C-alpha cells in the first residue's frame, strides 16, 4: 500500500445538474506509467482538473502519498508534487523558453523581494542555480539551444515539450500529461514516448497520462483505466484492456 503515490477514492463532481464524474477510483504506484483513456467527453480532463485543484470535487478523496489534496489551491497542489500539462497548450507565450521554466523553478529559490530589488549576492547565487537547473531540464528534450527564444515562436511539437519541461520544474512526484501527443506526427509521437519513459526513469516520478493515441497508451503504460460518461469502465494492464468487451463496445459503438 505504501507504494501508492496517488490514491483517488470515490471521486465525483457535479456541474449544475450534470454528474460529470462519478465514483472514480485510481491508484497510481511509485514510478508507474499510468494511462487514463476514454471516449470524447468521458470526463478525463475534468479528472485532471480535480486532481490539480482547478475544480473542487463534490465528493470523494484525493491523496498524494497519504496526504489529502481536496480543497487545496492549485499552486499548493503543484508545490506538493503534482504538476500537469494542458490539452490546449498553455505556455507563457511572450516569455522566453528559459523564463517559462524559471517560473516553475521558483519553488527552489527563497530570496526575498528586497533581496531581489536590491540585487544582493543571494539573488545572483540563487538565480544562477535556477538557471543551471532550468538548462539541465531543457536539455532532456534538447530545448536548451532554444532557451532565449520566445515560447510563442517555438514550433508546435517543441511547445508541447516545453510544457512538460515546465511541469518538471516544480519537481513533481506525479506528472499529469493531458494528451501530450495531440497534433504530433508518428515520428514525433515515437520520440515523445521515448522521452516520457526516459524522464520517468531519470526523475523517478509517476506519470498519469490522458491520450487518444492508442498506440502510445498501449505502448508505454503499465496500467490503464478506462472511463466513460464519468464512470469507471475498466482497469487493468494494456493486454486486459485490449481484450475487454466493454471497452471495445464503448470505443467502436454497438
Amino acid at each position, binding site marked *: 500500500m505504501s507504494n501508492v503515490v496517488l490514491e483517488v477514492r470515490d471521486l465525483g463532481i457535479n456541474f449544475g445538474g450534470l454528474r460529470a464524474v462519478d465514483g472514480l477510483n485510481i491508484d497510481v504506484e511509485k514510478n508507474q506509467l499510468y494511462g487514463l483513456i476514454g471516449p470524447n467527453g468521458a470526463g478525463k480532463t475534468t479528472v485532471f482538473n480535480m486532481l490539480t485543484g*482547478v*475544480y473542487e470535487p463534490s465528493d470523494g478523496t484525493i491523496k498524494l502519498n497519504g496526504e489529502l489534496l481536496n480543497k487545496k489551491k492549485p499552486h499548493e497542489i503543484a508545490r506538493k508534487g503534482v504538476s500537469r500539462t*494542458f490539452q490546449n497548450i498553455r505556455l507563457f507565450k511572450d516569455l522566453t523558453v528559459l523564463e517559462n521554466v524559471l517560473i516553475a523553478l521558483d519553488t527552489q529559490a527563497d530570496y526575498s523581494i528586497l533581496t531581489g530589488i536590491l540585487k544582493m549576492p543571494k539573488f545572483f547565487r540563487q538565480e544562477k542555480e535556477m538557471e543551471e537547473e532550468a538548462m539541465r531540464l531543457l536539455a532532456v528534450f534538447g530545448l536548451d539551444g532554444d532557451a532565449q527564444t520566445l515560447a510563442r515562436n517555438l514550433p508546435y511539437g517543441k511547445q508541447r515539450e516545453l510544457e512538460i519541461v515546465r511541469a518538471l520544474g516544480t519537481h513533481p512526484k506525479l506528472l499529469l500529461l493531458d494528451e501530450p501527443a495531440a497534433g504530433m506526427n508518428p515520428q514525433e509521437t515515437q520520440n515523445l514516448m521515448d522521452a516520457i519513459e526516459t524522464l520517468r526513469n531519470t526523475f523517478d516520478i509517476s506519470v498519469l497520462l490522458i491520450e487518444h493515441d492508442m498506440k502510445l497508451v498501449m505502448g508505454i503504460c503499465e496500467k490503464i483505466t478506462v472511463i466513460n460518461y464519468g464512470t469507471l469502465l475498466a482497469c487493468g494492464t494494456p493486454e486486459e484492456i485490449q481484450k475487454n468487451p466493454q471497452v471495445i463496445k464503448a470505443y467502436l459503438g454497438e
Partner: protein
Amino acid sequence: MSGINQFLMQLINGLNIGSIYALIALGYTMVYGIAKLINFAHGDIIMVGAYVSLLCLNSGMPWFIACIVSILACAVFGVVMEKLAYKPLRKASRISLLITAIGVSYLLENAFQLIFSANPKPYPGFITLPAIKIGSVSIAANYYVTFIVSVVLMIVLNLFVQKTNMGKAMRAVSEDEGAARLMGINVDNTISLTFAIGSALAAIAGILYSNCYSPINPFMGSLPGIKAFIAAVLGGIGSIPGAVLGGFILGMIETMVKAYISSQLLDSIVFTILILMLALKPSGILGKSVKEKV
C-alpha cells in the same frame, strides 16, 4: 410636510431614477452578455441621445419625430461603434477591449464638448400631461411616464429575447458563440442587433432623463452610466430581469441614502455596495456563475 408624505415623495424619486438606471442597465447587460464587454461608452450614448433629440426639438420638429430620430441615430451609432472599435478586437485580450471602450467613451464626451461646448444646455421638456395626485402627494408627468415607459420596454424586451428567433439567436450567441455559428446563426448580425437595441434603449433613457433633469451637458452620461453598470452587476449581469431589479434597487438605495443618511457620502456608499456585491456574490442577485474552461 409630514414624515410619511416625505417618504412617499422619496419613494417616487427612487422609482424615477431607478427606471432610468434600469433602462441603461438593460443595454449594459445585453451587450455584456453577448460581447463580454463592459461598454464604458454606453453611458455616453445617453448623452448622444439627449443632444440629438435636443437638436431636433430646437429645429421645430414635433416631439415624437425628435424621439424617433434620436433613437434611430443612437441605434445606428451603436452599430457603427461596434463595427469600428470592438469587432476588430473580438479575439483580443479583455484589457485591450476595456481600454478601447474607455477610449470610445472619452472620445464621445470630448467630441461633443468641442461641438456643443461644456456649457449646460436647457432641455425643453415635452411631457406635458397633468400630474397625478395620490392622497396629498402629486406625481409629476415626467415621473410616471418615465416609470411606465421603462416597465413597458423591459417587458417587450424580455418577450423579444425569449420568444422571437432573433432573441433566441442572441441568447445562443451569448451562451456559446462558436456553437451558435455552427448552428447557422449569423453571429455578426446578432451582435450588431444587440448593440442597436442597447443603444436605442440608451437613447430613450437619455430623452427621459433630460425631461426630468434639464439642462444637459456632454458629461451627463458618465455617472449614470457607471451607476447603471452597478445596477446591472447588482441584478446579475447578463440577466434582463436582473438589470431591471438592480436598477430599481439602486435608485431606491440612492434616494433613501440621500434623504435620510448623507448626500455628501452618497457616492462612497453606492460604490461600497458595488465592491461588496462584486466581492461576495459576483454573479449578482439573478445571475448565474460560470466555471472557466480549462
